[in-house]
């Protein structure tokens, strides 16, 4: 079973996930409430990308991680716990109490390249799919299958 996400504030980074071989997510723009950045770091190579949802490249992501990517890494560590993020990214971060900043600098020190795979559209559509979970109506017919999914007090 997968331990549940740890609670975190969502205003800055409403969506983060470990999927498709990337740490990826959506970061709210600090200046424009209607704009979001789609940011990602690839497993193993740490190839990074950051652009708006309308595919304009982020000005900060030249040469290395921008602030959006930094925020994404921070929130991933909050939500999933450092060990799981480090393991997923195959990062060479010190064992124990790694924080987001430490993990980011460990990856930065390998001089990663910009990611050219243009995954922004698919990440953004995964974010929309994630938001759509709020729109589904609750049901009061029993779901016996949920008995296979007990809660746990353990956190990620």
């Amino acid at each position, binding site marked *: 079973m997968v331990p549940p996400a740890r609670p975190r504030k969502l205003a800055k980074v*409403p969506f983060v996930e470990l999927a498709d071989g990337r740490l990826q997510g959506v970061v709210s723009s600090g200046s424009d409430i209607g704009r979001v950045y789609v940011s990602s770091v690839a497993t193993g190579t740490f190839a990074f990308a950051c652009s708006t949802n309308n595919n304009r490249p982020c000005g900060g992501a030249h040469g290395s991680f921008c602030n959006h990517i930094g925020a994404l890494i921070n929130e991933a560590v909050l939500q999933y716990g450092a060990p799981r993020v480090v393991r997923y990214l195959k990062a060479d971060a010190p064992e124990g109490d790694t924080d987001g900043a430490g993990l980011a600098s460990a990856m930065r020190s390998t001089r990663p390249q910009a990611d050219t795979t243009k995954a922004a559209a698919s990440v953004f559509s995964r974010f929309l799919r994630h938001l759509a979970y709020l729109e589904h109506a609750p049901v*009061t017919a029993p779901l016996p299958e949920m008995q296979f999914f007990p809660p746990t007090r353990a956190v990620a």
Partner: protein
Amino acid sequence: MRADLLAGPVEGLDEALEAVDAFDQALVAGLLRPQPAGTAGPTRLADAVLGTPLAAGVAEAAAKAAAGAAGEDHFVALAAARTALHGSVHDALLTRVDEAAGRQRGADVVPVAAGQPTANLLTAARAWLSDLARCGWQGLDHEVVSGAAEVVSAMLPDPSLRRLATLLDGFAAELAASCPGASLERFPLRRWGDLWSRGMLLTVPGAAVAPVTGTADGRLLPLGIDVTEHATAAQAQVHAVFEPADGSAPRLVRASVSVPKPDTVVGAGIWQLMRPHMSLLAAAGEGCSMDLTGMPVTAEGDLVWSDEHARPGEPAEAFATARVALPTATAPVTAPLDRHPARIAVPVFLEGYTTRTDDEGRLTFTVAGLDLVVDTDRIPAAGPLTPEAVAKSGACIGLIRWDAGSFGVQPLAVETTVRKKVTAVHAGAWAGGTTDKAGARAEKAATDAAKVLSERAGRLLRK
């Protein structure tokens, strides 16, 4: 409670589970290629259901699987055999619990929904599960696993497909977190086998339908709330004693509410999503009864809740209900397809036990000489009940469950002594909201998270 009756071995249980395990082992390498000599997982299943109506179909499916030529219908037959074996285990275990708890169980026949037309989405779900069976847990990769996403997204809006959608969603998330399969040293074989075969059976049209067989009029006395959840779904199930207005025998019933959720909605946020859809959550949290009029109910004792059939009743303390009404209540039957050990959750009242916490923090109740492991991990985090409170308790309302080969108890509420006063603490006390300081903080954090997500959804989702 005659706890000693839970201790002895159950005849035939090991043999049934050995056949299940043999099949589960075959799913590690997958069923795409002919089975190597000496590994006869599917065949073991077929042997185990010899002499039952499933025999011929399963024998054919096992032969095809052994040759690496099984099709989707064969996979369904194998899943059915595995489910039937678990059904027999369920029945044997439940008989034990009923004897121990002194519970009378009804003998109603759960009606089976009439055959229904095949739906495209069910076919798509079956195709994905068949892909899993072919590639095996060792062959898992993101490409295979991600095949579920589209099916789940298409199913979720339709409440009648919610059972399968919720199962597949939780299963796929778990598989994705374990990818690639080749790098795993150990697989949760029994668990993934359970989820796979459950999903397969639910792709049979009509399998997920639980027909309403009557209506309930009378008084509902809540015992406690059981919460289940995975990353993107949660369910709260209120266990209660129902006293029919016509004076007939009181019955054990359940009322459930479930909701899909984003994975970042956790803890109190889950209560917030479900709260508006079932007034019973607040009543159970506050220790009140409810009066029902014409509430639809299934043969399995599940109330299909709608607030229009219920109104608030008198205060009804759960421990009074557990002491007075619970011992006389009869329990409903389980629908044939739902018979599985994981489904066993029998409400009981325990007192006069001693508690012991071992070095690893595992809590045990010794009840009438029998050790019952207390599953404190199932106590929801968004509530006032804690493992520490359970360890200091003198009386407990709980659910008897069976896990990993032995019976245990899941606490729903306990009585503990606080400043020389006996106080009841309920796992679901915050279901309807709370004025508790820690609870209010959790509520606030959850409200903020939900607000951000709906603001983002409002701005970005195409309407």
